[in-house]
């Protein structure tokens, strides 16, 4: 008979780690199950400047490392496995992973979201061959090259600014005629001589020979197609995609309430099943940030504690 934990947490991003810290401190036996790497999407982020207490130069990985140590310090255990099936009804919840089964009295779902792809021809073929979703991973390849950033939100513009440290020219391709990013970030981008804008445009096709060497964009207003071809000396350019996220809720379909792909909870992070909570980017909410993910995790853990006491 395997151990029955008080709290099982799926995902070791800011929401899951925060839940782990609170559950651990409450002396609940806690297991955090992570698919591959701690941190979730924030580890792909070059600079975190809006999380309270973060100083200049704080990156996603440095922040998450400390959260991870903190959860460990309070006794939260960690397992690396990908959950493929869940049995959430009843007093004993079971998570079935590729490597093993995990049992718990409560489950906090915090496995977040992944980068949304453009969905155009060539994108998959050239991922890692010029197409990237991670500036901190791949920016160095484009030192003194040209790069394009697709998207117009906070992440897109912040990563575009990070890329200016490497690339000689960074063009932001956005489907609207103005950025959605926060004013302070927008102002930085507009003031940076390396940053250029291609408005009202979407990427239709990515082409190349082993590596990217051109891309077709469409002006959404005029429907005009333009092919952007790599500089002859460069042979290639980078395309960094930051157009939003897709929640990873497939395994919960038909079990938990889902709205537009996201898990539905009340303000206490409770789902429609007792003892099952959702926290972070995976749930329906208005602001998906590290700070709200951490808050969700704390609330979910406290609710889980209350629920375990009633058993």
């Amino acid at each position: 008979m395997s151990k029955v934990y008080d709290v099982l947490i799926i995902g070791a991003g800011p929401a899951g780690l925060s839940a782990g810290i609170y559950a651990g401190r409450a002396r609940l036996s806690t297991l955090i199950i992570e698919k591959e790497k701690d941190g979730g999407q924030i580890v792909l982020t070059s600079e975190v400047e809006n999380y309270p207490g973060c100083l200049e130069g704080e990156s996603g990985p440095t922040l998450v490392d400390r959260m991870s140590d903190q959860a460990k310090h309070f006794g939260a255990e960690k397992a690396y496995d990908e959950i493929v099936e869940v049995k959430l009804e009843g007093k004993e919840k079971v998570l079935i992973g590729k490597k093993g089964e995990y049992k718990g009295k409560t489950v906090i779902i915090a496995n977040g979201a992944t980068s949304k792809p453009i969905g155009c021809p060539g994108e998959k073929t050239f991922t890692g061959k010029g197409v990237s979703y991670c500036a901190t991973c791949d920016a160095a390849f484009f030192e003194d090259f040209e790069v394009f950033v697709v998207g117009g939100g906070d992440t897109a513009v912040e990563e575009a600014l990070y890329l200016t440290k490497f690339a000689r020219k960074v063009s932001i391709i956005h489907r609207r005629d103005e950025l959605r990013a926060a004013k302070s970030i927008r102002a930085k981008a507009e003031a940076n001589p390396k940053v250029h804008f291609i408005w009202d445009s979407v990427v239709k096709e990515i082409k190349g020979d082993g590596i990217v060497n051109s891309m077709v964009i469409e002006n959404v207003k005029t429907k005009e197609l333009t092919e952007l071809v790599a500089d002859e000396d460069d042979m290639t350019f980078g395309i960094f995609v930051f157009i939003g996220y897709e929640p990873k809720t497939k395994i919960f379909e038909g079990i938990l309430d889902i709205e537009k792909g996201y898990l539905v909870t009340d303000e206490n992070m409770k789902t429609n099943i007792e003892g099952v909570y959702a926290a972070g980017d995976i749930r329906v909410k208005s602001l998906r940030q590290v700070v709200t993910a951490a808050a969700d995790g704390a609330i979910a853990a406290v609710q889980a504690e209350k629920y375990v006491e009633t058993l």
Partner: protein
Amino acid sequence: MLMLDKTNFEAEVLQGEGYIFVDFFGDGCAPCEALMPHVVALSEKYGDKLKFTKLNTTKARRVAIGQKVLGLPVIAIYKDGEKIEELVKDDATPENIEAMIKKYI
């Protein structure tokens, strides 16, 4: 694992004989860092059957681009100097890497 750089990649991999495993990683690449312990474990398990190497692309950008590596991490298998298979980014999971190794030993 043999640590490669821009001075010995050619000799160790492109002029190497038989099957050679190359882990392309880079400074500040969190997914690469997360993957590395798994790769080290695989090198201990299969090291007697396959030559395991790794290249820090941050210090060997031209070498990486020459190998059509423009995104990290990439785990590749070379045979007689030719890249015959690779796993890029999300596809480079410990399970997929082990399955790829097993094909060539």
